[in-house]
Every structure is written in C-alpha cells, then in structure tokens.
C-alpha cells in the first residue's frame, strides 16, 4: 500500500482545517498574555462568520465582505472590552454574554432579513480563490501538503509571523507580556494595564473575525453554530502551545490532523459516526491531559517540593 496516497491528502486537509483554530488562537494569545482568559473567542468567530458572508453577498466583493465582517467582530470585541475594563464587569460574564449574544443574534438577524433560521445559502456569490503556487506546487510532499489552499490559510501563517514580531520584538509586546506577568510593574511605571488588556481583546476580535470568515466563505453558506466549538479548541491550542505563537502553530496542526483523520476514517473503517465526529474533541481532551501531566513534571516548583 502506498502511504503517501493516504497520508498526503490527509495532511493537506489538516492544514486547511487548522486555519480557523489557528487564527482564533493567535488573537486569543494576545489577551492570554495580558493575563485575561478570553472565553469569547467562539462568539467573536461566529459574528465574523456571519457578517463576512453577509457583507460579501451585499457588496458582491469578497475582499470588502471580509473587511466589513471583521470590522463588526472588532466592534463587538471593543464593546466587550469597554464593558469589562471601563465599566468593571467580570470578564467571564461579558465573555459568556458575547458568546450567547453571537449565537442568538446571528440566528435572529438571519430570520429577520433572510427569512430563515436554518442554513443560509446564496447563489452566485464570489468563491474563495485557491492559490496555486506554480512551481512550488510541483515539489513532492511539500507541494502536495502546503500549496493549493485558499488565501486565509496563508494569511494565518503571516499573522503568526507578525505575532512573533509584535510579541517579542516590539516595546508594545514587552509591555503586553509584563502586564500579564505582573501588572503592578506596569502601574508603577505610570502605564495602565487596562490599555494593554483592551488591545488584546481588540486583536482577538480581529483574528476571530477572520477565522469565522474562513468557515462561512469556504462553505459558501452560513450554518447556525458554524463554529462548532472551534473557539474553545483555539483556547486549548493556546495552552497546548505554551502561550507562544510557534507553539500554537504546532498545537493547531496536531488538532487539525486529529480532525482530518476523523474525516478519513469515516470512509475506511466501519465505526459509529458519532464516535468519529467526537474524535477531534476526544483528542483535545487527551492532549490537554498529556500537557498538564508534562507541565506538572517539568515545573521547577514541584521538583523543589520533592527534593
């Protein structure tokens, strides 16, 4: 049996699947680094998914659609930021509210404007172009796995690259990380930790909007709850990736492979479909357990306690 016939499309698919998780996790990382657990990634993605496709149809232009859709998700994120940091609400409650608002509002809006609470499908909408890379595509293995994706995939890689720079190579990133590690340091300098936390939320609004846009535009339709927990998986990816951009890339890829495998297995082995669909989530749980065990044995404090 030729393994590459089976494994290369599987990897190609994994690269595709990991993209929305990677995008959401990249933005989530910025809030995480400021010491804020942003549970609203899921809701922000859903807002992005809905408005990207709606605006793409309305304007007839893919680029404008994404731009406006992402703007809406940034606006929702900033609203959440204002309520949390200016009005001093609990971030967990505002995050939860954002998630509930997103799932309720998208369905409500779609029933009011498009007259359906179910799947939104549009005829004649612009398609997401796939990028072929000419000669790059002809490189064995590499070409088959990493080329021929739509532009969101490559954008997510660029964003991870930018995140590395922003976090580790700018004064902004330094202060952002200091905010998470010890906000008192920032206060003592006369800066406001709140500002950096707010920027973190805005950035997560931006990337979650993109992640959501990828989901609906790739499908050419909006399905209620189209995100299907990817915002939560992104949160897991942040922790699995040890809160570093490169780690997140790896974590998202592993989770992508898990989902990709579950799709392939459906066609090959006769096992209950429910189990197959649950496979990525089971993998997530296992990955988290393995991660925390690993963390436990490698943290200096535990070693000290035993020694």
């Amino acid at each position, binding site marked *: 049996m030729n393994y590459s016939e089976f494994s290369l499309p599987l990897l190609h698919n994994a690269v595709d699947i990991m993209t929305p998780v990677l995008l959401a996790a990249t933005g989530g990382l910025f809030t995480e680094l400021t010491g804020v657990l942003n549970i609203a990634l899921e809701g922000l993605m859903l807002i992005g998914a809905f408005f990207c496709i709606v605006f793409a149809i309305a304007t007839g232009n893919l680029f404008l659609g994404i731009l406006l859709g992402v703007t809406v998700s940034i606006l929702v994120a900033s609203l959440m930021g204002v309520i949390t940091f200016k009005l001093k609400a609990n971030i967990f409650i505002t995050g939860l509210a954002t998630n509930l608002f997103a799932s309720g509002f998208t369905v409500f809006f779609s029933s009011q404007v498009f007259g359906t609470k179910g799947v939104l499908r549009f005829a004649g909408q612009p398609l997401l172009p796939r990028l072929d890379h000419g000669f790059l595509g002809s490189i064995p293995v590499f070409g088959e796995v990493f080329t021929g994706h739509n532009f969101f995939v490559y954008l997510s890689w660029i964003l991870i690259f930018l995140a590395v*720079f922003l976090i580790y*190579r*700018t*004064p902004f*990133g*330094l*202060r952002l*990380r*200091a905010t998470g*590690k*010890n906000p*008192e*340091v*920032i206060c*003592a*300098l*006369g*800066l406001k930790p709140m500002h950096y936390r707010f920027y973190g939320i805005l950035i997560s609004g931006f990337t979650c909007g993109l992640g959501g846009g990828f989901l609906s535009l790739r499908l050419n339709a909006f399905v209620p709850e189209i995100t299907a927990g990817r915002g939560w998986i992104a949160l897991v990816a942040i922790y699995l990736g040890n809160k570093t951009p490169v780690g997140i890339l790896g974590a998202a890829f592993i989770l992508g492979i898990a989902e990709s495998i579950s799709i392939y297995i459906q066609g090959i082995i006769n096992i209950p479909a429910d189990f197959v669909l649950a496979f990525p989530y089971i993998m997530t749980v296992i990955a988290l357990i393995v991660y925390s065990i690993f963390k436990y044995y490698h943290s200096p404090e535990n070693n*000290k306690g035993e020694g």
Partner: protein
Amino acid sequence: MSYLRMESITKIYEKKGLLALDDVSLEVKENEFHAIIGENAAGKSTLMKILYGLEKPQAGRIFFKNREIKNYTPMDASRLGIGMVHQHFKLVPDFSIAENVVLGAEPVKGGIFFDKKKAIEEVQQCIDHYGFHLHAGDKVKHLTVGQMQQVEILKILYRKVDLLILDEPAVLLPEQEVHTFFSRLKELQEKEGKTLIFITHKLREIMQIASRITVMRKGKAIAVLDAKTTNEEELTKLMVGTPFLFYLKKEKIDPANVILELKDICLYDRTRKYCLLDNVSIKVHEGEIAGVTGLSGNGLAELEDVVAGIRPPTSGQILYNNTLLKKFDIAELRQGRLAYVPADRIKRGSSTRSSIHSNLIISRRHTFSSFGVFNMEHIDRFVTSLIKEYSITGHKNSPVATLSGGNIQKVILARELSVNPNFIIFCEPTWGLDVASSRFIYEEILKLRKKMVAILLISSDMDEIMNLCDSIVVLYRGKKVFAQKNSREITKTMIGEYMLGLKDDFNSENNQETKDSLP
C-alpha cells in the same frame, strides 16, 4: 530657592476616611542624602507616591528645580528626573535584567521594533558604570534578593534621573548585604551628584550616611534634624512620640492554662529565598492579652496568617488546647471557639457588598436553620440585639461598604464575639479608627480578658500594645528580639529600639538568661 520643595501637602483617602497627610512640607537640597523616618502609617510612603506622581494630593504644591510641577504621572516624573524604588519589587521574574530595566522606556529601531541588542548593551553599560556585578541578559528570577534590589535601582538610573526616591528598599535585604547597599547609595550621592530621598527604619545606618533627617508621625512632619548633631535616642523618641495613656481599668488576673502555643514557627516565602518568620515561639494563656508588635514588613502580617490558619508554616508546631494541630482546618477551629478579627477588615473581615445582617450571621449560619431553611424571626432577633448591643449605626439591610471604618469593625467584633470564644486573635484592631471607636474596642478586649479568654493582639500601634498587653513580644525581620511581661519599667523608647533592630535579646549567647526567664 531649594531643589525640591513640597508645600503643605494634604492627602485624604476618602474611601477609608483617612487623613494620611496633614499639611506636610518637605524641603530637599541638591545633592543631599535626605532620610525620612517614622512609624507605620506615618504617611512617608504616601508623601513619596505623591512626589512620584502615583497619587494626587487634595491640597499643596510641589516645586522641583525652581519650577512648580503639578498633574503629572510617573512617566512625566521620570522625564523630569525623578525616579522611585518601591518597597516591594516591581519586577517581571521571567524577563531578563535588561528587559526589566528598559520597560516603559525601550530603545527602538526602525521606528517600531524593540531593540533587544541595544537594550542589553545600554543596560550593561549602565551596570558597569555604577559598578554592579550583573549580566544584563540574565533572567531576574535567577537573581538573589540583593541583586533584584540592584535591578530596581538600575531601572531609575537607566532613566538618568537625578532625584532618587527609595521607599524602604533595604527591608528585604539580608543583614549582611545592607551595609554594601548603603555604601553604594552613598557613592551615588558623592560621585554621581545624585540627590536621594530615603525612607527607612534603619537608624544606625542612616545616621552615618544621611545629611538631614525628616521625622514623620501620624501624617505630620514633626522635625527636620541634622544627622550629625542628632542621635538614635532622640530620633526614636521623636518617632514614637509621648505615650498616650488611656486610663483603662485593668484588673489583675492570674493567667491560667496555656490555650495557644507556637513552637519554633518558621515561614519562608514562596521562592524560599527569604525567611518571613524565623523560629518564633509564643504562648498565650487564659485571661491574658499577649501582644506582638513590630514595624511593617517585619513579620506581623505573616504571623497573623499563620495563627489564623491561612498560611501553613514551613516548619514548627502549633498547639491549641495542648493538642498539636497537624492540618490547620480553619472551619474545625472555628467550631472549637476560635475568633479572629483580621487586620484587613474590608477584604478578610467582612463581605462589604453584603448587608450587616448577612455579615453578622455568616459564621454561625447553621445554628439558625432547621432542615436547611433559615428561621428568619430567630435571625432578626439575633441581629437586632447585636446591632443594639454594639451600637452599630446603620440599618441591618444596608451593605457593610456603606459603613464607616469604626462601624465595620463593630460588625466584625459583634460577629466574632457572638460565638463565645475562648481564644481570639486581634490584628490591628484600631487601625485608622477614631478615638471613640478605638476606646470601644479596647473596652471590649478588656471585657474578654475578664471572661478568661486568651487574647493574641498583633498590632503595630505601640500605645495599644503598651496599654493593653500583659506580655509583649517584638518582631524584627521575622525574628523575636524582645519578649517580656509588661510592666512600668518598659518604655516606648525601649520597645522602639527593639522594633528598629537596635537591640536584640535573643541574638548573642550572653543573653541566654533572658531567654530562659521568659514568661
């Protein structure tokens, strides 16, 4: 015109209803080493925070280099040339020394990028220039406490300030590093021409290096002295003031059984770098008020945590009613009639958003319910009688946050005493309270003593300790330096000397007799 002049600074913390600074003026000359000393809560730190722009005063003016400065942030202050080292480290352990130092004033290349290489270079230059022995690229978490202190000072030196404010920077330093640290500061003044304002409790060291000393007490600047012409005794007297007598009627009671005994309690901080409590042993008898005092940062807060069961000690034993407590279960102890009036009455002592009503019944809620349902009539009777008994001004349904400090303390006291304790811990019971409220609390404490309750009073208020306690323990750097029965011979100045670490009964071997004759 002088270099720095703070004129009639008044600061009121409205939320706490506290007058922190009352018309305080301070003058500092250029290239001077100016020390500020005073007891806890004298307003030293507040005054310095105002100078650094962290706090805004209600009244007063500040002149710096012949120019009035107002409405400025710490960022502006460092641009003006004022830098501050805080009492507690403001460092990010995971960052390198260079990153910690440049944070907030990062060197930039290409307009947006943080120039890490330049940061390390510049910080290393700064380190070498001032003769520190550090590598700019090292992570702060691997440093010793003394080195972390150097990083804090580098932070302001890097910003090229000429006025350095240091708020008790030597508190955390191991004793053997204190001297080096002070001579380094002296060098900054002499060789670099910097001006230093220094808050400290270390009288002996400060006498040698400071030019002038301002003494603060209870929110007022009471004296400015020339370091050359004054002495330790005079300073201690000025700091503690004349004793304030309450004329409380204190009956003679012969202490009976030991209720609580701490044996060789040690407590290390989380990083295990420094010792917060060092072999502290204390006994509390029935019908006795045992007092523990010291300056802030010397282990009082930690002792509170250990005795109340909030932080387990690193080593040592706690005996309660002669039984050894292995695992300190607070709920169990509370059932065993332990009462606790914490120093932090807002965060630990009460739930400020809940009503007086709820706060009063919280610790004995089980006694008011049958089959899991509250007997509201019973509770109402109980609450109303407590409000009357302790003359708490406020409706039973109003949140505790709306009450004054004195009334909050009365609510806590009412709740804690309603369980009929046989052992009670009081921590800073009258901190920030007015005279009438304080008096009320003192009378309650004495009533408890009469009922043969064992009382542990942890307080930095010397008057309180001297007037109430039957025995006095002084902690200095987490170590017991003084332990005697209270008597007329014990004076405030004497206690003050122990608090400041000028004397230690337990240090040298020739003091063995004192140790053996402990109560």
